[in-house]
């Protein structure tokens, strides 16, 4: 009897603690949500808690607004934006492997450092050809080999040209990864390391957040931002305006500072699609690296030793010049 009483008491204590913990967690969660969903206007003062425990008031313009747009339904995320045909143009003459696009992309999608949805390769087309930096994201092909092979319709092509993945449906068979000739897709081999509030966000294919273990993910052209009329973070972050993003139907693309006609740009600069011969019909066009703004070494010198290691087969080219 006594034993039972003790048990009972300890159970009640436990329940009490658990309830408090749950309430506290829920409060924190909702707080986190409300913080991230409320958009602060420019020049508005925002109160923040400093690491020392003091409340400081700063101008919201100094804050980096990391917020994901309103959640759309799964069906809406499958259909895409009517009347749009998103397209990207990458100007290879301007890239110096500053890697700002990669950092911005990873920050926006809460991806760890090694998981690059967007990578910058160093290509050299022939023995005598000159190496050049080649940013590569998902090509959002119009004839996507990845979509064709998905057994559960988890990855799909939308009417606005974007290829997305529904990570609530993906079974993780990795067939799409084997089928993608550009090795664009990445897999969550282990439980993604995400903060509490990110982990508890409602998943949506348009944001791709939170990442889920055992599923495939890739560059998504940031449709949530496109809906709000914003450019993808890679486009915004590039210091040289390498990326032009826009709508093929409107025939306009912009790199943030200049807005040009898509067809004119492709015509003037002899734009091409990478590996056209595969018949995948990519939605990403490249402008050949003619009249380059930067010597190719510029992108190598500033790299950390870790990253330099990636291009070790080109080492002699870079070291010779130094």
């Amino acid at each position, binding site marked *: 009897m006594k034993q039972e009483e003790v048990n009972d008491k300890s159970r009640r204590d436990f329940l009490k603690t658990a309830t408090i913990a749950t309430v506290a967690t829920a409060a924190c969660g909702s707080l986190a949500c409300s913080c991230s969903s409320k958009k602060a206007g420019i020049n508005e003062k925002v109160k923040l808690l400093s690491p020392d425990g003091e409340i400081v008031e700063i101008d919201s313009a100094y804050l980096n607004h990391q917020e994901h747009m309103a959640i759309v339904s799964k069906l809406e995320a499958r259909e895409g934006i009517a009347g749009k045909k998103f397209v990207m143009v990458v100007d290879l003459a301007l890239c110096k492997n500053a890697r700002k696009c990669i950092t911005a992309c990873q920050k926006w999608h809460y991806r760890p450092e*090694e998981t690059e949805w967007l990578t910058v390769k*160093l290509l050299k087309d022939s023995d005598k050809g000159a190496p050049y930096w080649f940013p*590569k994201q998902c090509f959002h092909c119009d004839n996507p080999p990845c979509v064709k092979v998905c*057994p559960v319709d988890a990855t799909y092509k939308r009417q606005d040209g974007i290829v997305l993945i529904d990570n609530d*449906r993906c079974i993780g068979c990795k067939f799409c990864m084997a089928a993608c000739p550009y090795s664009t*897709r990445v897999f969550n081999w282990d439980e993604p390391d995400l903060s509490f509030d990110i982990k508890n966000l409602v998943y949506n294919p348009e944001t791709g957040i939170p990442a889920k273990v055992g599923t495939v993910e890739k560059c998504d052209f940031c449709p949530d931002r496109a809906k709000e009329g914003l450019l993808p973070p890679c486009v915004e972050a590039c210091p040289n305006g390498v990326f032009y993003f826009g709508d093929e139907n409107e025939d306009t693309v912009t790199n943030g500072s200049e807005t040009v006609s898509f067809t004119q740009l492709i015509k003037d600069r002899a734009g091409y699609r990478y590996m056209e011969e595969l018949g995948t019909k990519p939605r990403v066009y490249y402008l050949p690296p003619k009249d380059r703004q930067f010597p190719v070494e510029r992108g190598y010198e500033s790299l950390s030793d870790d990253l330099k*290691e990636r291009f070790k087969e080109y080492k002699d080219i870079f070291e010779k010049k130094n």
Partner: protein
Amino acid sequence: MELNNYQQEAFNYQRKTIEKYGKRAWGWTIFYLLCIIAGAYALYLQIAKGHGVTGMRDNVVWGLFIVNFIFFIGLSYAGAIIAGILHLSKVSWGKPIVRLAQFMTIISVVVGPVFILLCVGRFDRLHHLFVYPRIQSPMTWDVMAVVTFFAGSVLFLYMALIKDFAVYRDAKLDIPKWKQKLYKALSLGYRGAASQKRHLIISQNLLAIIMIPLSIIVASILSWIFGMTLRPGWHSTIFGPYFVIGALYSGCGVLIVAMWFYRKMYKLNNYFTDKHFTYLGYIMLVLAAGYGYFTFSEYFTSWFGSEKWDGELIHKLFSPSEYGWWTLFANLAGIFIPILIVAIPATRKPNWITLVAFIMVIAMWVKRYLIIVPTLETTLLPMQDTRTEYVKYAATWPEWVLTIAGIATFLLFFTVMSKFVTVVPITGLEDTNNKHQESVHPVIKKEEVQPA
């Protein structure tokens, strides 16, 4: 059930094998179970910690598991084709080995698909394959193919067993009640009446006719999981027939090895005669030549055309610092040596044939590895990755343990099934006419050793 003398003889000879689960069988069973438990632990780790515990990474997305899948499912298709042809053709020598071929079919179609499930990142979502099937996907074709094939092969084996179950039921075997009851239930009241006989033989013939093309179709679909992608070494028009003949070839090897083991263990020399080894050896030789021809066509066209990525892949396969030695082993032990051993009359002996068949089966497994991994390591864009495990695939211990567990399951099923039904079919022998019977199955002398 009425049996003729010859069938009665065959039954009496094998009766002990299904009456008693001997010490040796228990020993092996426990050993296999231990292997499977080790595999279960590896599987637990993989589920709990994610696929990070395997050697698979973003470039080489499939590894040992898919190799095992192709290997086992290939055996299954081969078993069905061999059993189907032996059933339909009225060659009397083939009848005793039909059941072994069917064992192989049913066991590998259970073991094989487990391995493709191991490649799947989300076990909890497997039902999506049926809830949201996407018909364009070769993976969906494969799911449908394997499920159909599984149903077909279960029926095919069962049809062939009904008459034997009736024999076991009527034989007053020294076995526990539940087993007696099970035989009774499974025999479906078969008494050997004329109408029963007729229905059964028609169903069996129909199933055999269905199973042969079905096996060819499903083996091709399996190959198209790879053939439909745009990867060097996979995107090939001959992949369908290449996989069909590869499956048949390795299946023939496993059948020879299984025959040798059962002949040894159950002393079935009168049923699995030297002639069986010679005949299956001939079939193996023809298949080896066919497989060699396909392999040569694959390598030769890739190399001669020397497209960039094909060239890279061929270089990987043949350079000694990468897969060169494995390629040499796979083609030497997998194609040349079996042809040589069977072609030379001096070595055309059961032990020799079994030995080369065994090594050939291993070589064929290696061949599957060489089809899968080097291609995945050959990306169209340069990898430029510093993480070594992303660049080159190396199987980790959970993958090896699960592979061993798969082989253990395969052998465990063989052990258990051969204790439940006789390895040599009893009633299946009825088609042999007396003339052939004498030449292929010499009458057993009473004083000969009984199996343990």
